[in-house]
């Protein structure tokens, strides 16, 4: 146990409280969207009704990519990135590396989106920032991820903001640990019949203590990702390479070799994909080709970690001959402590290292973090509202954000489900989110009591959770038999999770209402 002297403990309580109260609501927005984004792939499949289960890399990609290369200017053959989009279709980005006005490396080229049959569905030319963005069939999951990563604030400010929120979470987690005088006792103490403030305090303490290591990992890895490109890379590049960020990128991620610009047809990409699947046991999540059409072409395939491992797999192939070269670390050319450290940051943050099981644990602990943030804010307020009635607005704000934000996210899902078949989901998903947020804010102003506001928002969340699977079906989404028949259980799993979540909320609200009605009429009593 850590026993701080009284003065330092008081200071840590103040640091813990103020780090939460100043940034708690924004942190809550980042954590709740991150919690949902853990299942971004499954939510994408559920919302868009994707029923294809074979990866794009398990279908022929060689001929379509060769055909695209033939019609793409040679200057964009420096790098070709292949990845999955939509319902396991293929996205291909032919590009060359460039620097923007501020010296930051960018990629400029043509981004092709292929349909199921390998035909070009769309082609966009520009920088990576211009050509990538939400699609009609992934607008919901993109919206979730973008909210989590940068709160829709333009780069680099959005990333800096979420990085600062990560540091605030780090401070809250460490100071939360330091202020526990009896950690082992506290993590098992839940007084159900005590004063409501004490009950809330126990719940906050138990949820916070159990999820403390997780909060630390999430805050640390999250702030790493936010500051990596915005602050870290420019400064380390300045220090080690005189400001040349491309040199830093090449040193860390590149495949060094003797340049050989002799024209040479690319090796068979289907053969590479098949071999990579055989070696890693899983389809690539990404395939990167360097120097397409040259004798020194190199193909790198990226895969999820093997069962029981946490470090992703990266395989290197000779691009000209399609021959397997070696398994390489994700970062650097040889295994190293630094490379491993960076490589495990992603699985630790996204919780995708052991499939659905680790994702479910990450989701559950994310839920605990949301609960800790909200109850922490309420505890801070409960200690002050009695003395300062002027804080009533803040109490309402906490309720509006605490329940209004998940409600708005569910509203965005409704907007997506209804408008995706019409092809306008990219506009309507955020538009409905904003409309529902505005309605929740308005309710915060006009609903007469705080208790009624809280109850109304929770009922709305429960009703939407139950209604969403029905709306999905009504909008033409696949039914459970169809989804199961094609081996796509995530559609049924998300439906069930929503029905269970909504049902549990309604059952809890009805129980609370019954208790209130069964209680005798209140009489005026002293506060303590």
């Amino acid at each position: 146990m850590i026993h701080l002297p009284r003065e330092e403990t008081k200071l840590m309580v103040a640091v813990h409280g103020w780090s939460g109260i100043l940034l708690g609501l924004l942190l809550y927005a980042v954590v709740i969207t991150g919690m949902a984004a853990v299942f971004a792939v499954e939510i994408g499949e559920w919302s868009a009704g994707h029923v294809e289960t074979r990866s794009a890399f398990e279908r022929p990609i060689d001929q379509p990519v060769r055909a695209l290369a033939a019609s793409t200017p040679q200057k964009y053959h420096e790098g070709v990135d292949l990845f999955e989009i939509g319902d396991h279709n293929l996205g291909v980005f032919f590009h060359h590396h460039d620097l923007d006005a501020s010296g930051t490396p960018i990629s400029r080229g043509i981004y092709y989106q292929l349909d199921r049959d390998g035909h070009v569905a769309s082609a966009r030319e520009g920088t990576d920032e211009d050509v990538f963005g939400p699609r009609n069939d992934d607008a919901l999951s993109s919206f979730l991820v973008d909210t989590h990563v940068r709160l829709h604030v333009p780069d680099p400010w959005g990333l800096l903001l979420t990085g600062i929120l990560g540091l605030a979470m780090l401070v809250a987690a460490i100071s939360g640990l330091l202020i526990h005088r009896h950690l082992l006792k506290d993590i098992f103490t839940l007084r159900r019949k005590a004063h409501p403030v004490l009950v809330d305090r126990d719940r906050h303490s138990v949820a916070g203590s159990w999820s403390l290591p997780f909060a630390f990992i999430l805050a640390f890895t999250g702030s790493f990702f936010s500051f990596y490109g915005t602050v870290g890379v420019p400064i380390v590049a300045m220090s080690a390479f005189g400001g040349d960020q491309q040199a830093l990128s090449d040193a860390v991620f590149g495949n060094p070799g003797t340049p050989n610009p002799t024209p040479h047809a690319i090796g068979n990409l289907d053969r590479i994909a098949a071999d990579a699947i055989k070696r890693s046991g899983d389809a690539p999540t990404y395939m990167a080709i360097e120097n397409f059409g040259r004798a020194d072409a190199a193909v790198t395939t990226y895969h999820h970690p093997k069962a029981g491992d946490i470090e992703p797999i990266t395989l290197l192939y000779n691009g000209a001959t399609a021959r397997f070269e070696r398994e390489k670390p994700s970062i650097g050319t040889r295994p190293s402590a630094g490379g491993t450290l960076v490589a495990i940051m992603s699985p630790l943050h996204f919780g995708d290292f052991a499939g659905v099981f680790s994702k479910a644990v990450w989701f559950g602990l994310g839920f605990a973090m949301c609960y800790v943030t909200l109850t922490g804010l309420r505890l801070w307020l409960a200690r002050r509202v009695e003395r300062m009635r002027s804080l009533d607005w803040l109490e309402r704000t906490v309720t509006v954000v605490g329940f209004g934000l998940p409600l708005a996210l569910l509203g965005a899902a409704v907007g997506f489900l209804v408008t995706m078949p019409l092809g306008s989901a990219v506009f309507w998903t955020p538009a409905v989110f904003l409309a529902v947020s505005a309605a929740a804010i308005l309710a915060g102003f006009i609903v007469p009591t705080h208790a009624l506001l809280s109850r109304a928002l929770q009922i709305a969340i429960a009703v939407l959770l139950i209604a969403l699977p029905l709306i999905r079906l009504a909008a033409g989404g696949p039914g459970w038999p169809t989804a199961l028949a094609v081996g796509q259980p995530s559609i049924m799993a998300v439906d069930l999770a929503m029905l269970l979540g909504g049902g549990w909320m309604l059952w809890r609200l009805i129980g609370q209402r019954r208790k209130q009605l069964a209680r005798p009429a209140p009489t005026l009593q002293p506060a303590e």
Partner: protein
Amino acid sequence: MSPTARKWTRIGFAGPGAIIVAIVTMAGMALWLPGGAAGIDNLVVPLVLVPLIWALLFFHACLDRNLARVVVLSIGLLVLHGGLVAHKFLDKPAVTQEAHP
């Protein structure tokens, strides 16, 4: 030093001070950390460690009763790593001159 001055000195080192020292330390670490087996440890380890360095500096500035130790540690890290970066930049023209007489 008056209690108010001590308080603001502490706030200064825990707030903007911790940010500046963490960033300068990250820049300087790239120059003295060994590259490791792949020659990249000096480039990537500072990037990973910077949130932790900041947190350590923040909590140290908050909790160490000996304010002089907080000042010496922070300024020491700043001078050491800032000096390394400055030396690298001051050294660069000389190297260039040698390479291209």
